[in-house]
């Protein structure tokens, strides 16, 4: 303790003690007033909607303007769910197909990752590209295309099979079919996790195994795979969660065969054939959140243990396994994946966009140009709804990218670069949306914001707010990953040189974190353009977006326009990705 007692020290100095006390309080508690507005924003965007969702699941009433009656709480909706066979069937379907899809995605993803990272295969760049391209086209477009390829009677594949007299049918409208499509479109996540882990691994670990007398294969199975197992497991859980939550794929491929899944049941209770029951749907949504939260917890435990793998390498290329004669066959497996996941679906999309009729009776008809026309294009491009959707998608993506990006930047700064009180709580709130399926989020926003007298329902604003809220975890992570790389001493050096807090942010932090901001903005834009499951509860004909338009056209059976619109949506995505790459490249070139 100092020689002077605290009380005396405080009282003998200042002349105007009242003023000074106020200043002291502001200095000590000023942080609270800075972080408070951010908390209010996040409570509005994230906490409040989820609270309403939970509240709604325990009541029997539709949402009203902020009137809560806690006497009326009931477990009735949960009782109904547990008593219904529909729920148990849907849960079983969801869990089983996700498991099958996960295994399928794991096999392809790990295989492709190992090929590119640890073998002398040809065309590594092509394989690497093939393994992530499906990421850019929404899984539901893949599902649409595959429904056309693999429907039991009119599917192109089955037309071909019959033509060649082969005695089996390929039925995409089945649990197996859905597993297959899941596997195809979630492979990129497994690939990225696994190849990332393989590339970060210290080559010395594998070299030590070789020195100890292990062959290439022994090293692969005794050292390499055990070391990347945490990455593989964690990506497996991630894709499992995504498959459990996704709405459009099981809706498109399951409905024709009357196969129901947890998300499609929720959808039907809100938007399907009456009677609707939003309370029941919320209760089901809560159950899905519980399942996902448990999985996320397991994943975080696994990721916590992975530190021993991520020894940064010294830029030494790891020893590769020589495939010898198998190089070409292995390369073909990668091409096969590209064919099945991208080339075939887009071929049928283009082909059916150009056809007047859906039905292709035989192989000859598939290639015939007699029934080709631009009729579908004309009907779509003449429809003002298409242009509304296109404009909404692009303008909202840009708006959300910029405004959301700014918000995530401020939050990230507060969390990682300040000592503001409550910044860790801020971080926890921001990762909450991960545990909530897109469809369930849509329901939460719908309830929460309808019941507020702010009049955003039916406008694009409800979608914009929903996107900003929904993509908070992804956007924040993108900014933060470059924010935490900036050594605090860089800012401290600026402060000591005579530059204030805001000046330091502007002159030092902002230029250095720019690549992170850029990748967050483009990522959020990309996610907005692909978004379907949240929008589907929030749109009206004025605020419709491309993805919803595709889904609506599909629901009303207009296959030709579906193909045209899906192609346009893909073009928008492709344009966005290309633009990003060009800007990133020139940015990198500028830094050199």
């Amino acid at each position, binding site marked *: 303790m100092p020689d002077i007692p605290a009380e005396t*020290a405080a009282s003998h*100095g200042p002349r105007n003690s009242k003023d000074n006390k106020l200043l002291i309080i502001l200095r000590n508690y000023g942080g609270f007033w800075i972080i408070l507005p951010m908390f209010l924003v996040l409570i509005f965007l994230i906490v409040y909607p989820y609270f309403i969702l939970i509240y709604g699941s325990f009541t029997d009433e539709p949402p009203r303007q902020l009137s809560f009656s806690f006497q009326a709480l009931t477990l009735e909706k949960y009782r109904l769910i547990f008593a219904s066979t529909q729920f148990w069937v849907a849960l079983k379907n969801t869990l089983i197909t996700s498991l099958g899809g996960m295994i399928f995605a794991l096999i392809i993803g790990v295989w492709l990752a190992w090929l590119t990272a640890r073998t002398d295969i040809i065309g590594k760049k092509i394989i690497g590209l093939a393994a992530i391209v499906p990421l850019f086209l929404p899984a539901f477009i893949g599902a649409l295309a595959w429904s056309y390829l693999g429907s039991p009677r009119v599917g192109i594949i089955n037309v071909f099979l019959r033509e060649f007299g082969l005695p089996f049918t390929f039925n995409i409208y089945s649990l197996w079919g859905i597993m297959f499509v899941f596997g195809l479109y979630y492979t990129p996540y497994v690939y990225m996790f696994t190849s990332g882990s393989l590339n970060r691994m210290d080559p010395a670990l594998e070299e030590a195994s070789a020195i100890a007398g292990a062959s290439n294969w022994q090293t692969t199975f005794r050292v390499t795979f055990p070391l990347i197992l945490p990455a593989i497991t964690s990506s497996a859980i991630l894709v499992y969660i995504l498959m459990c939550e996704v709405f459009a794929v099981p809706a498109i491929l399951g409905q024709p065969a009357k196969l129901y899944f947890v998300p499609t049941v929720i959808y039907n209770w809100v938007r399907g054939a009456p009677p609707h029951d939003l309370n029941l749907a919320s209760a089901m949504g809560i159950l899905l959140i519980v399942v996902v939260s448990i999985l996320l917890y397991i994943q975080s435990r696994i990721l916590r243990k992975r530190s021993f793998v991520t020894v940064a390498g010294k830029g030494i290329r790891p020893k590769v396994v020589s495939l010898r004669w198998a190089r070409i066959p292995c390369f073909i497996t990668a091409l096969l994946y590209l064919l099945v996941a991208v080339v075939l679906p887009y071929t049928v999309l283009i082909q059916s966009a150009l056809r007047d009729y859906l039905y292709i009776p035989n192989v000859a008809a598939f290639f015939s140009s007699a029934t080709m026309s631009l009729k579908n294009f004309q009907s779509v491009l003449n429809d003002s709804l298409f242009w509304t959707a296109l404009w909404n998608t692009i303008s909202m993506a840009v708006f959300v990218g910029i405004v959301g990006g700014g918000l995530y930047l401020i939050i990230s700064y507060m969390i990682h670069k300040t000592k503001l009180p409550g910044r860790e709580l801020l971080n926890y709130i921001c990762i909450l949306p991960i545990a909530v399926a897109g469809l369930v989020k849509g329901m939460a926003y719908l309830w929460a914001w309808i019941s507020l007298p702010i009049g955003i329902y039916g406008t694009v604003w409800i979608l914009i707010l929903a996107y900003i809220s929904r993509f908070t975890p992804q956007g924040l992570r993108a900014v933060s990953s470059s924010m935490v790389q900036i050594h605090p001493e860089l800012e*401290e050096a600026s*402060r*000591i*040189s*005579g530059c204030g807090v805001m*000046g330091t942010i502007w002159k*030092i932090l902002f230029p250095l974190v720019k690549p992170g901001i850029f990748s967050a903005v483009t990522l959020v834009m990309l996610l907005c353009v692909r978004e379907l499951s949240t929008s589907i509860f929030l749109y009206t004909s004025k605020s419709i977006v491309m993805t919803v338009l595709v889904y609506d056209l599909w629901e009303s059976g207009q296959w030709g326009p579906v193909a045209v619109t899906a192609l346009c949506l893909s073009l928008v995505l492709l344009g966005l990705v290309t633009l990003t790459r060009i800007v990133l490249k020139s940015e990198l070139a500028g830094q050199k």
Partner: protein
Amino acid sequence: MKLVIENLTKKFGEFVAVDNINIVVETGKLLVLLGPSGCGKTTTLRCIAGFEKPDSGRITIGDKVVADPLNGINLPPEKRGLGMVFQSYAIWPHLTVFDNVAYGLRMRKWPRAKIKERVEEMLELTGLQGLGARPAPMLSGGQMQRVALARNLAYNPDVLLLDEPLSNLDFKLRERLRFELREIQLRIGITAVYVTHDQSEAVALADEIILMKEGLIEQRGTAEDIYNKPKSAYVADFIGSANLIPAVVKGEESNCYMLETPEKLQIHAIKSDLVFNHGQSVKLVMRPENIYLSKKKPDGWSINSWQGDVVVPSYLGTQTRYVVSLNGRRFFVTMLGSSQAFHAKEKVYVNIPPEEIQVLTE
């Protein structure tokens, strides 16, 4: 400018990082804060800089009070008029060398022409002539640290703070930059506080060393004082290498204490200001370079001379270090000179002058 720290205390939760310390650095002097990690030296420096807010105490630079939290004073770093060199160099990677050095001058609204002139002058001072246009990431570690120095000296700060500035450099460069740093500091006569855990750096640079332990000042003084008259076994062990031998006081003899180690070695040591009682357990400190090895018992040595075995010799060019065993107790001995006198398993006499042995409480 003179730096005065009075009763500085800084806590992190319950942990007291800096415990009521007092420091004065006279104008133009270089103070080294020395100690292992977690001793509070960096926290002290960061309190001076304004990156940590002290819980109590007062920091004064010249006649400006920069921190006195109990009176509501805690100037932000940019208002303190300091310079600081960081361990990570903290060279802004998006700026050129010139812009890095000019940064503080621009903050002080210097005119363009004067900035250019001053930056050139600083680059010359730090041996970076002609590198002004170079982007900062294209520098070596040593060059980066020179830029950091130039950047902080450019605007004539009142006090220069250095936070382990050389610890990321390789050994040879570290030694060279250490001399250059000291030379520049002496030439411009700037007051400096230097934090390090490297005792050889501390000894080479400091006008005064403050050795810290667990938030407290363990000992302060010139390098020579601390090396030759350590107040505790902790200090002796931290500064240079030392043989720390447990012993018990067996008696007194004019100006000497007579002591005995657990291995039954009878040791004489000259008395200091400290007083010990018969039977008290103590620690004996002997510097390896103050112990002499010889083939035969030296003439006139009746005390502090024992026969032992060379266990490991380690030839280092300018000196040879030995591990010698006496009744099973191992001693480290340094013999200067570029020829190795003894070899492994050889019998030698180990001689320690009584005035080279410090007796300290345990």
